[in-house]
């Protein structure tokens, strides 16, 4: 019982929120502005914050009579200006041939239905105080592809609580079937806790209960990486400065074209965010209270240092490099079977797929980033050893054959068979002897002389498309017999320029597979 009471200390309850945070920090004028969506939108827009476009405003019955419904686009959102908690919001996502629209709550909406809804808004059904209200039409945010599986019809948004210019806690809110395509939690939306340092989701709640998967589609909810996270935090802090609310909840959606867009600012941000994050809010608010925060970047840094999750993610942020473990799952592109053996066409395939392979002397072996996805090229996935002791990456001969390089490997073996390889032999001397073949194979193939404790070996190098920890590289892999070794592929230093290696890190992908 005592630990129970002690644990509750950092919790932010309704009483403390109202008395200790809203009352002293959110002055009446600022609250008024925040509650008026059109006015706060205008203030944010003037300050250069991206907000959804307005298609039209209807202030009274007279304006309703003359409103040009035909000018409305196929999808839009109809909102009451002073509504709260998502009440009275109609999300329209399509138009039928007979000019009627379709709303996310299901069902057709004719002009008459929309008119009636606007009338209800006028009556003040959805406004804070029940006072009469005005209605407006707003741009519907275009759903980001990576969030599509998690959202039912509506648009997910990100709630960030900012206090004293520090983003103290954040939550991703997903619309569900129950919430009628709206992301509000008390209407049945899902709230996902977000690691403030990285923008990766942690826990999920629905109706204040912890859940693991989306109720409708059964997708796992933790581990979603929210894109443009730093930008989102920066925008949230700016919103606090503009709105002059000391304690603010900023709702931001990510538009697939425009990026982060501020939906609204809230003076009375709810407390469920604590459940989604499984973290008490008061504890965090107390920590940042009184700090002198210089600018947005400083505020973000404070939040990341104080409330961030994993350390390795922070290293990635600081260095701009991905952290790899000793064993990583990689993808290797399969050579187009039509060109197998001829081997010359690989670059042309690359061009078709939108890949630009850097040309240059054989000495420039720095991995090149592939600008476009190689959607057309097939690839295989396997575990590779990250070996900082090796200069080059190498691949098992058998595997390289399976990847479509059989003919070239056979030809190489054939010509090399008769070569004398002495200790002081150089690549140039050997290359000269097999020049015909090298010219025939083209730019994707090269050779290398490797000196090791076992002596000197002359190996074939193949330029391969690999994907390591989500980053696409072109790596020259030396072909050798690794059949007696555990890993068919090792990744050497030349391919690791953009990474840091942490021997203690275990990759999630490796774990995930082993667990199965």
């Amino acid at each position, binding site marked *: 019982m005592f630990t129970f009471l002690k644990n509750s200390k950092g919790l932010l*309850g309704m*009483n403390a929120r109202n008395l200790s945070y809203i009352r002293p920090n959110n002055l009446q004028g600022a609250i008024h502005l925040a509650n008026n969506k059109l006015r706060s939108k205008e203030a944010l827009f003037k300050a250069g914050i991206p907000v959804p476009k307005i298609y039209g405003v209807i202030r009274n019955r007279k304006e309703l009579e003359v409103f040009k419904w035909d000018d409305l686009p196929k999808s839009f959102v109809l909102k009451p200006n002073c509504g709260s908690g998502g009440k009275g919001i109609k999300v329209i996502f399509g138009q039928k041939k007979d000019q009627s629209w379709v709303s996310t709550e299901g069902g057709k909406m004719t002009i008459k239905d929309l008119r009636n809804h606007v009338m209800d808004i006028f009556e003040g059904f959805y406004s804070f105080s*029940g006072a009469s209200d005005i209605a407006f039409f707003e741009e519907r945010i275009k759903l980001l592809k990576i969030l599509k599986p998690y959202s039912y019809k509506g648009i997910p948004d990100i709630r960030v609580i900012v206090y004293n210019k520090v983003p103290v806690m954040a939550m991703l809110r997903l619309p569900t079937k129950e919430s009628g395509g709206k992301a509000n939690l008390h209407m049945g939306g899902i709230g996902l806790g977000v690691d403030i340092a990285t923008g990766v989701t942690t826990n999920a709640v629905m109706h204040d209960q912890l859940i693991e998967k989306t109720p409708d589609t059964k997708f796992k909810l933790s581990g979603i990486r929210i894109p443009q996270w730093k930008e989102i935090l920066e925008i949230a802090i700016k919103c606090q400065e503009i709105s002059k609310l000391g304690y603010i909840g900023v709702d931001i959606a990510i538009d697939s074209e425009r990026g982060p867009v501020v939906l609204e600012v809230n003076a009375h941000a709810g407390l469920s965010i604590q459940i989604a994050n499984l973290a008490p809010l008061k504890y965090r608010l107390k920590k940042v209270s009184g700090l002198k925060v210089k600018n947005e970047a400083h505020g973000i840094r404070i939040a990341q240092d104080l409330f961030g999750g994993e350390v390795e993610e922070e290293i990635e942020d600081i260095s701009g490099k991905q952290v790899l473990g000793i064993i990583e799952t990689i993808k290797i592109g399969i050579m187009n079977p039509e060109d197998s053996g001829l081997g010359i066409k690989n670059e042309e395939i690359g061009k078709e797929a939108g890949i630009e392979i850097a040309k240059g002397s054989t000495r420039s072996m720095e991995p090149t980033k592939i600008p476009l996805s190689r959607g057309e090229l097939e690839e295989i996935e396997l575990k590779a050893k990250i070996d900082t002791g090796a200069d080059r990456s190498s691949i098992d001969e058998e595997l390289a054959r399976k990847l479509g390089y059989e003919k070239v490997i056979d030809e190489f073996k054939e010509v090399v068979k008769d070569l004398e390889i002495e200790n002081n032999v150089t690549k140039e001397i050997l290359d000269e002897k097999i020049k015909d073949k090298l010219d025939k194979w083209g730019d994707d193939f090269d050779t290398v002389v490797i000196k090791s404790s076992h002596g000197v070996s002359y190996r074939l190098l193949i330029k391969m498309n690999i994907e390591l920890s989500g980053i696409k590289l072109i790596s020259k892999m030396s072909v050798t017999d690794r059949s007696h070794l555990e890993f068919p592929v090792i990744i050497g230093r030349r391919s690791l320029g953009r990474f840091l290696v942490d021997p203690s890190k275990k990759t999630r992908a490796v774990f995930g597979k082993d667990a199965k």
Partner: protein
Amino acid sequence: MSNIIQLIASQGVSIETIYLILALPFVATLIAAFRQLIGVKSFGIYTPLVLTFAFWAIGIKYGIAIFLVIFITGTAVRYILRNFRLLYMPRMAIVLTVISLAILALLAVGGYLNKTGLAATSILPILILITLIEKFISTQVEKGFRTAAVLSIETLVISIACYYFIIWDIFKNLVLDHPEYILLLFVINIFLGRWTGIRLSEYLRFREVMKNVDK
């Protein structure tokens, strides 16, 4: 009985009246405590207060019965009227009309079944109960049926608790003997107004969070 009370009573004011006036601030404080300490929300302070004194006037049994009749009829009529697209005031007037008829029917049935207690009750508290429906309906429209139903049940629970509080003899004697205790309410309410602790309901709501707090 305290001297002041005796003095007022000697001027022809009934003890009942004096008691109810003195009890009102206690009930109001109790409702405030319910909100701030326990987290039972209810519809503001007016609705549970009026409901408490209506129960006191009508009797708890008939009071609850009438409350339920009003609530159920009001909700049903609202649902029927939804398809008619009427403006707020006329719509509410129709709801009140149907409820009035329902109460009239209830009184008639009561009389027929010889439940004289119902017929004998004063009409003013019943009228006040009827008007409370506006609060319920407007909450249903604004916040949805679920929230409105929860708030209504919470209001009912608070009112019943307050009802048993004011019919409690020990409390009654205490107030009439020591009306100066009313000054204590200032202290209690200042404390409640500054209380930033966690409400009882929040312990329940955030139990998962507390389980996960290390240190």
